[in-house]
């Protein structure tokens, strides 16, 4: 059986697609056959972050409407043999998504022997987001250390407990909180919500904290998932997160203000 994981947040711009790309790549690099689906129909972005935008022939909606089969639409990643991307359609809108269609695609992927199916949810709580979460076994809730993002995540947690197949069957989705764009320095100066405050409000197990890093933007623009940037703090934090998801116990890093050494203080850093 495939494990279906939705990456969701409610609020836009918090790093869902960056996280989906890094997460799926990380799972694939650990040897798991992984598919990542872009549910943001009409605002196709995942293929850009994954660096496969020039290889899109068929998309998710084509498969749902029967114009292509799943094998034709899946794009094999250049960097890993285990990773496949199912892009969204850019010319359609989210109404083209149907629950039966989504279920069929997920079943096809399960039958194909995928270990993990990562669903990259669009922002909001409408159709696209609702269908991205409906069949999920696990949910990664991406939150920025900022009040509106935390409130929207709280709303999404409520929906995960009521508007999913698991909830309808009386089971629980596994919820994991991932805090992104975390800046210990700004927390210390009081500009940003601290991790403890977010956990207090959301009361969901923490699976990772990704520090604010310039490498995330660079990675997005160059179409290389940031987890592949082993030098960057964000890349390392994403790797920790994937390992925790797979059951390893990994201590949290990058939570304290980095103490600048003499060299950095003299030359900047």
């Amino acid at each position: 059986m495939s494990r279906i994981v939705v990456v969701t947040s409610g609020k836009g711009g918090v790093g869902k697609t960056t996280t989906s790309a890094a997460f799926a790549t990380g799972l694939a690099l650990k040897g798991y056959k992984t598919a990542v689906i872009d549910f943001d129909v009409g605002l196709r972005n995942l293929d850009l972050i994954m660096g496969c935008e020039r290889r899109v022939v068929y998309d998710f909606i084509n498969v749902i409407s029967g114009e292509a089969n799943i094998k034709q639409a899946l794009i094999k990643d250049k960097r890993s043999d285990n990773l496949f991307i199912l892009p969204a359609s850019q010319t359609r809108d989210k109404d083209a998504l149907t629950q039966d269609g989504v279920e069929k695609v997920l079943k096809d992927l399960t039958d194909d022997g995928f270990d993990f199916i990562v669903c990259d949810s669009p922002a909001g709580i409408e159709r696209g987001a609702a269908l991205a979460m409906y069949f999920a076994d696990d949910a990664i809730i991406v939150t920025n250390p900022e009040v509106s993002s935390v409130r929207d995540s709280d709303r999404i947690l409520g929906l995960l407990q009521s508007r999913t197949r698991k909830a309808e069957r009386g089971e629980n989705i596994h919820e994991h909180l991932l805090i992104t764009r975390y800046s210990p320095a700004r927390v210390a100066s009081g500009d940003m919500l601290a991790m403890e405050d977010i956990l207090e409000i959301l009361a969901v197990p923490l699976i990772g904290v990704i520090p604010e890093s310039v490498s995330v933007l660079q990675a997005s623009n160059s179409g290389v998932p940031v987890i592949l940037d082993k030098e960057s703090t964000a890349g390392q934090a994403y790797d920790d997160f994937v390992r925790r998801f797979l059951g390893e116990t990994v201590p949290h890093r990058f939570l304290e203000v980095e103490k600048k050494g003499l060299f950095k203080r003299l030359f900047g850093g």
Partner: protein
Amino acid sequence: MKEQIIDLKGEMSLLTVLVLHSGNMHSISTALETKCQQASQFLERSPIIIDCQLLGETGLELDFVELKLQVSKLGLVPVGLRNLWEEAEAKALAAGWALLRPSKQQPTANIPPVTEVNLTPEYPEAVQRLLVLDRPVRSGQQVYCPYGDIVVLQHTSAGSELLAGGSVHVYGALRGRVLAGIQGDIQARIFCERLEAELIAIAGRYRLLDEIESNLKGQSVMIYLDQEKLKIVPI
């Protein structure tokens, strides 16, 4: 546009009802005469309905022609009969009476005197009297227990809403809105471990947390209604 000449409408008007206790025409006319003398001003030319419910079967013996005559003679305008024994209907119609549909109310004479007012609202059978939640109440979630208490074993989030006919207990931070006694129960109370609510209300009297003394924010409190004022006390 064509001018409207008449309108036919079904309306309720206040009418005097004459309740007959006996079918004896002679006693009726005597009693009626006495009544009219006592209140001639009040009853003159007033339309009247004759209620025959108390007569039951004896309604058959009533002389409907004579009844109409007697009523008119005393200056009343007979409108019709109601609650007449079914077998007597043809006889009444033949005498020129109109038959009115029976009123839903009992004749005034039969209404038991009001001795006590039932203050506790009657709950329908098998309603939920207690709702216990062991998960946090999230933003956008609404918990509704119209006739009972709500107990939350975790926190409630900003943007959530608890609506209870009875009291509300929150064993955690209370951050959303909370409305107790929504059916008007002024004895309903709100208890929470940490008061951070946006809005609190009991039986329709509400307060925003913005207005609340800051020393109570974040405290364990009980909220109750004292006359018309919401009182918040630490516990």
